[in-house]
């Protein structure tokens, strides 16, 4: 195992963050196996039941039911599936688009850099919430549209941050040396610059996954996210809002789910950042 990987794994935050993320991933993957009920199944005779440990609770519905009698626990687990799919696919997409442009702009500069820079300026003059809403209006609803909206909004963040980093790395003498020794541009970027920006990339990816979970929740909350029959945490919250007096648990469970998922990604990202900083300090000793 390379020293970098082992150093990273020794960090408590990475271990806990990664553990939580894997747990959520497992829930998402094994949803059909571990969920007690079908998340869309309505039991109109047992609506708004409290969790099983309350006096009025029912063992059959461990976390209770919502206003249409659907099992909260099952909806939470399937909601994890939605959240994880969005988190992984959307962040990877945003990362690919943003970092490719960021590397090209930072390394080559020139007219490409100027054009992309202006595009990023225009993009970033929208608050992300507004932009994603507007995009959803244009694209329509559905899981794939949500993923596309996130990619189209968040690529700018990757682009900007990576461009600055690439600018710094390109100033280093060893990049100049590679060019002088005869490396082509492609060789220089892949062998000298990319290994230096990779740690930042991975950290940003993890943080972006946290953002993706939140954006998906927001869009579902507003009613512009996934389709109405798919389970999503934001939708659960929107539903539960009306019944906040009668059944506060309906609101609290999906809230905790979101907070745990976002914290997990943030913790992982923070742990990775620290591990890479330590590594950098060691390399530069």
């Amino acid at each position, binding site marked *: 195992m390379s020293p970098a990987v082992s150093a990273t794994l020794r960090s408590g935050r990475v271990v806990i963050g990664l553990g939580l993320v894997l747990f959520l991933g497992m829930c998402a993957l094994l949803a059909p196996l571990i969920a007690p009920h079908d998340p869309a199944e309505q039991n109109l005779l047992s609506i708004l039941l409290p969790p099983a440990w309350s006096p009025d609770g029912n063992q059959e519905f461990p976390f209770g039911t919502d206003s249409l009698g659907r099992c909260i626990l099952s909806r939470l687990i399937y909601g994890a599936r939605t959240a994880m799919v969005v988190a992984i696919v959307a962040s990877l997409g945003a990362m690919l688009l943003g970092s490719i442009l960021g590397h090209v702009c930072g390394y080559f500069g020139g007219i490409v850099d100027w054009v992309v820079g202006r595009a990023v300026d225009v993009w970033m003059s929208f608050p992300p919430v507004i932009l994603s809403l507007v995009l959803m209006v244009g694209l329509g609803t559905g899981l794939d549209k949500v993923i596309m909206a996130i990619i189209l909004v968040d690529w700018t963040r990757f682009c900007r941050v990576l461009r600055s980093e690439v600018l710094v790395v390109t100033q*280093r*003498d*060893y990049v*100049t*040396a*590679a060019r*002088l*020794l*005869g*490396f*082509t541009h492609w*060789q220089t970027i892949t*062998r*000298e610059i990319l*290994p*230096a920006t990779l740690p930042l990339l991975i950290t940003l990816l993890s943080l972006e996954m946290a953002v993706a979970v939140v954006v998906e929740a927001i869009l579902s909350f507003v009613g512009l996210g996934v389709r109405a029959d798919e389970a999503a945490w934001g939708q659960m919250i929107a539903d539960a809002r009306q019944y906040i007096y009668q059944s506060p648990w309906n609101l609290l469970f999906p809230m905790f789910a979101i907070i745990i998922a976002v914290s997990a990604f943030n913790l992982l990202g923070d742990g990775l950042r620290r591990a890479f900083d330590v590594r950098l300090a*060691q*390399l*530069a*000793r």
Partner: protein
Amino acid sequence: MSVLEARDLTVTARMSGIAVPVLREVSFRLGPGRILGVVGESGAGKSMIGRAIAHLLPSGFAITGGSLQFEGRNLTELRHRQRRELLGRAISFIPQGPLSALNPVRTIGRQFDEHLAHLGIRRREERRERALAMLSAARLSDPWRLLERYPHQLSGGMCQRVLIAMAFASNPRLVVADEPTTALDLTIQAHIVELIAQMQQQHATALVFITHDLRLAAHLCDEIMVMYAGRAVEYGPTRAVLSAPAHPYTRCLQLANPAMCPQGRALYLLPEQMPSLRELARMSGCRFAPRCPVATQECLQSEPPIISHAANHWAACIRPQVTLQIVAQPALPGAIPGAIPARSLLQVENLHKRYITARHMLRSATEISAVRNAEFGIAANEFVGLVGESGSGKSTLAKLLLGLEPPSAGRIVLDGEDVTDCSAHARQVRIATVQMVFQDPQSALNPRRRVASIVTQAMEAGRQPAARDERIKRAKALLSDMGLSAELAMRYPAQLSGGQRQRINVARALCKVPKILVADEVVSGLDVSIQAQLLQLLLRLRDEFQFAMLFISHDLSVVRHLCSRVLVMYRGEIVEQGPTEAIFAQPQHAHTRALLSAVPAEY
């Protein structure tokens, strides 16, 4: 009563659970109005003395033995508030990097004012007067405007003058100057040292002058203390220490210094380098013995005690009488600069480089001429020195030669081919003919590559990259040529010392044996003994590999030891060029004379 007195001062660091001594039983005495030079290479512990005086040691470091007394008061026993009373008032510090030692978002005036207020001057008018007086005494012109300026608007030399003014503003009884001139240009260095000497005399302050430059210490200080591996190995009046050194290390340091080694002699080579802190913990006996040319078995057994030589002159060596037997070898005939010029390899004609600064709103763009009318040639196997201060354009010239930037006008002919236009063909010619050795070993080596991969990086380029076995073989061969052991091949740059990294730098450039090497300030950050090793290495490699070199440096004495011809650059123009000895003996241009006179005269 002495102003500063140390008795067996010991500072220990805790590293991974082991107690490692950083300063061991250092003793000295500094009388009022006297100047003590603390000389040593990096890692010797000289800066630690300054930190011990201020009691601002890095975390994990602590004073574990001996005493440090300031005017009879034990500094280590002071409480925090009492110490803060002393700092800035009775004891002042002059830092190493002047530009970064001032708060960038506050004006000079505000910072000086704060300092004077802290000293107890109540009235604002009085503070302003005093600030202006001190700034004038530091020979800064127009001090009124200076008060309104920010640090980034001043040059390094001006910032240092401000810091010196602030240090002496409180009429301190002790000033500690930690490498105050290292970050400055040569001509500025001389002025700053003059200023410090002048202020010290005016205020009758005791001064501790920490430096790595033996010659500078010789010029300024009354007494010299030589440090090695955390211990003071020699102490005495300047003249005595330098004319008749008692400790072999002092002698070797003298002979390895290009400015102090007699002409016609090779620089003295000390093998390897000073032991690191970790290695020190495991050593016994004299710490210098492994590198000492006159060491005996007895030296390795126990640490030598302090033996007094003459009045106030002692050394930590049991065989001081053989020290003067250490002499520099005569320079090898092939190594003497002055080789017969062969066919011209590089020809530069009428070279210009102009930069246009960005246009701003209503202001028109301005033009800066970085290089003007450069014209010179380099023959095969010739070592040519390029000397100039910062801003003289020497780095720009290097970039033009290497094709990193296109010239604005002129011609560059390399090995018979015109490469001025930076076309693809020109690039191919350059890759085969010219390579560069960079200044900063930190940023010059990719920290994620292993040494073997770095030195054979040239074999990775091109259409047919070489196979792995071939590269490892070549890497080992190159390492042995550089005088490094083959086991370094699988290490990362962070695990190497500064001198070793610089050799890797050279090895990488020589991998495909270019015809010309451009070395940009490659020995500037290195210790004297490491510098000597690298310079001798370059001379030896020339005989083996047969290449020419353009050696860029601001240090004239280094150039003198290495190059047969010298180009002097000033404000973008080559103001003088010719054979080294001729330039040194009879400099024609005013700037050349200024550079030569800036080298501090010996006592």
